[in-house]
């Protein structure tokens, strides 16, 4: 960023309408990154409405005061505590919710005291009970010592007046709001002023309050601060309480002046209260919640399949086209079998991510999400989770990737981490093709007790088992992972509002973009690696496939011949050799090297298992999609040459089902966990514990049954 860029920080309480204002100011010109060292979304954007100068808007996580309650809120203090830093804002827009004026102004007064120049964007004036046009904003502005711009978050009214002001903005240091000596601790502030004559006293006081996270202070100054702390018997929490109460007292006096003639900055909450009676009712509340979840699940599961099939077909056709137009050779294979399916494997997730985040954004926007937490908190707490974990876990039944992205809404790091770690245990839709083919193969199709189908029962058991296992693992993780943060739930239940559709659509856009460009990179690289493993082999064994098949199996028709060649090539590729290498390891689970190859290739995505199996058994992957029967018959007749027994028995089939239900067979999930936890440590732990657990369970099942 060049130095003449004006940096504007956007600050405000949660639910004050900060996001709407940010979206109105920047439109699609947003970038989402992380604040340094933490996985907290850092949204920045260039303000498109101002042409005369470059204005960068930085959106900070919502916070109630300058004293942070969570890592998310910590970020703001870290950024403003160093006046020398690159990212130190020139001016702050504090978003104030007019319906909760006093509480919102607390943060305003703290920011003013720390010395950031301030502009107020006042939202929610449209929901005030008192619809009089003449609420005295001028008087309020004068008393607070900051310009106030009314903003309508729904239609963007008033944003232009604000941007006009910002575009001609001249730096002016604000007057302090709270006379510190008078209200807090006179002796302390005299000492501070003597030691740091050219610093704002409130800044130094914040250094003392939040020494560990205060970045803009050298070691010598730090020593002086520590010394003053010692000498004055500094009691941080007590002073903080005193300070907050003093601020409210001053604000009360100001509001009394402004709310003359019975005008009140409050909204009519009777509608919200009535709705709450219903939505948190022991019976209706849960029924409504389950209905919403069911609807969400249905949408991710079935609506998304339409665009997904379309994307799948499109990339399939593109691959075919590339295969026939590019001159034959390694480049052809790289593009048509490696790169195009690799990109397809990323894009295919976008519909599910978009639909899930459409729902989540709507639930957040309406205020219902806070009620979900309220309803489920007591149950989730048992497992070391939080009410907010329920949405990721349910989404995990469709796909773990959007589920893990959705865990960002959980503020407490430990609760968020556990949610991320157990999400892949929910059986996702990619497991279904694997389940379907194996169940059809080894589970007899018969009725139990006259009304239940055994195959359906096994399918249900796999889903239920995954969920129960997820909760058990959460219990264990809760004991293992230590967290310095004391978990508490003091959460506002905001008034119900209609969703602002602009915010919803921007959320969808931004989440999809984030997925494609961050996790997408890793997924793409691994797809290419897996393609190379399956397409190349040591020496020239693979090149002889054509000749050998023609020699040993003359008289095959063209299809059969091609399938046979593909099968031979895969067997002699690096992946095939790897399959043979791991055979001793997987033999105790009842698998042979052919299944080993499928295990390796399906690491790209679980459903690849079906395609790989059909190639290895030379059914032809083209047939398997249209005709699952042919692949089933082929597998059923497969005999293990070492034992002379069928490869797919009840024992090995069940063992394989359980393996796929538990194991971390999905590089896309690992990629997204890496992004969301900002390190390779957690995805690796996840890979080891899930695959290890899968191995042990499958081993037990196979050894007991065979």
């Amino acid at each position, binding site marked *: 960023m060049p130095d003449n860029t004006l940096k504007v920080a956007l600050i405000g309480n949660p639910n004050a309408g900060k996001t709407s204002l940010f979206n109105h100011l920047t439109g699609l010109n947003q970038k989402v990154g992380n604040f340094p060292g933490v996985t907290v979304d850092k949204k920045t954007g260039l303000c498109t409405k101002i042409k005369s100068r470059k204005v960068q808007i930085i959106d900070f996580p919502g916070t*109630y*005061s300058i*004293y942070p*309650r969570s890592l998310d809120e910590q970020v703001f203090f870290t950024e403003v505590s160093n006046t020398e830093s690159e990212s130190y804002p020139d001016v702050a827009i504090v978003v104030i919710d007019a*319906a*909760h004026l*006093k*509480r919102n102004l*607390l943060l305003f007064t703290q920011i003013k005291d720390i010395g950031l120049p301030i502009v107020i964007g006042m939202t929610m004036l449209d929901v005030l009970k008192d619809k009089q046009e003449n609420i005295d904003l001028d008087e309020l502005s004068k008393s607070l010592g900051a310009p106030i711009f009314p903003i309508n978050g729904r239609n963007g009214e008033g944003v232009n007046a604000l941007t006009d002001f910002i575009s001609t903005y001249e730096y002016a240091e604000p007057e302090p709001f709270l006379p510190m000596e008078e209200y807090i601790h006179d002796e302390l502030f005299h000492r501070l002023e003597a030691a740091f004559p050219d610093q704002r006293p409130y800044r130094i006081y914040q250094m003392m309050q939040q020494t560990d996270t205060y970045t803009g202070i050298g070691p010598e100054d730090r020593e002086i601060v520590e010394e003053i702390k010692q000498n004055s018997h500094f009691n941080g*929490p*007590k002073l*903080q*309480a005193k300070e*907050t*109460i003093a601020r*409210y007292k001053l604000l009360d006096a100001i509001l009394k002046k402004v709310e003359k003639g019975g005008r009140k900055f*409050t909204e009519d*909450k009777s509608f*919200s*209260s009535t709705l*709450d*009676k219903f939505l*948190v*009712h*022991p019976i209706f*509340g*849960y029924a409504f919640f389950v209905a919403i979840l069911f609807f969400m699940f249905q949408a991710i599961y079935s609506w998304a399949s339409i665009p997904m099939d379309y994307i799948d077909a499109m990339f399939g056709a593109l691959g075919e086209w590339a295969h026939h137009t590019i001159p034959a050779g390694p480049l052809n294979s790289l593009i048509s079998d490696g790169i195009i399916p690799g990109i397809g494997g990323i894009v295919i997730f976008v519909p599910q991510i978009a639909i899930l985040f459409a729902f989540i954004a709507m639930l957040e926007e309406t205020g219902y999400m*806070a009620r979900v*937490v*309220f*309803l489920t*908190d*007591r*149950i989730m707490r048992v497992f070391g989770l939080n009410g907010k974990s329920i949405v990721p876990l349910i989404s995990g039944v469709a796909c773990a990737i959007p589920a893990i992205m959705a865990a960002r809404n959980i503020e407490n790091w430990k609760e968020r981490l556990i949610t991320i770690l157990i999400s892949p245990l929910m059986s996702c839709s990619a497991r279904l093709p694997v389940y379907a083919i194996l169940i059809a193969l080894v589970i007899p199709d018969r009725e139990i007790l006259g009304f239940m189908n055994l195959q359906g029962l096994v399918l249900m058991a796999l889903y239920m088992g995954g969920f129960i296992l997820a909760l058990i693992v959460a219990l264990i993780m809760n004991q293992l992972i230590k967290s310095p943060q*004391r978990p*508490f*739930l*003091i*959460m*506002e*239940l*905001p*008034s119900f509002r209609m969703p602002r559709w602009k915010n919803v659509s921007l959320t969808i856009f931004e989440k999809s973009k984030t997925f494609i460009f961050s996790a997408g990179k890793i997924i793409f690289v691994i797809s290419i690696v897996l393609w190379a493993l399956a397409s190349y082999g040591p020496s020239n064994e693979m090149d002889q496939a054509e000749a050998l098949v023609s020699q040993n199996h003359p008289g095959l028709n063209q299809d059969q011949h091609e399938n046979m060649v593909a099968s031979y090539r895969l067997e002699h590729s690096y992946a095939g050799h790897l399959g043979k290498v791991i055979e001793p390891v997987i033999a105790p689970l009842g698998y042979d090297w052919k299944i080993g190859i499928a295990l390796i290739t399906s690491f790209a995505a679980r459903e690849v298992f079906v395609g790989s199996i059909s190639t290895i058994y030379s059914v032809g992957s083209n047939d398997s999609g249209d005709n699952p029967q042919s692949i089933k018959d082929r597998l059923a007749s497969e005999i293990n040459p070492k034992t002379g027994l069928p490869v797919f028995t009840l024992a090995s089939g069940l063992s394989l089902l359980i393996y796929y239900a538990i194991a971390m067979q999905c590089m896309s999930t690992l990629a997204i966990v890496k992004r969301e936890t900002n390190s390779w440590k957690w995805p690796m732990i996840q890979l080891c514990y899930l695959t290890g657990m899968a191995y042990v369970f499958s081993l037990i099942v196979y050894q007991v049954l065979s």
Partner: protein
Amino acid sequence: MNIADLKLGQKAVVTGFSDEELSLRLLDMGCLPGEEVTLCCKAPLGDPIAIDVAGSRVSLRIREASTVMIEKINN
């Protein structure tokens, strides 16, 4: 008396706090000594609960609610 002792719909006035760390969080939310609180709903399992205070609705767990000292208003 603390907030956890209130019945649904009962009003009270905040008098103090027994847990320093939590009190600071509650002060930030506008829950100050002298403010009127109303217990407006309970989650189906009785925990967490929600109170109306200073114009906002705030939910807290029973363990947190029991650290807020109150005096009942006789109405």
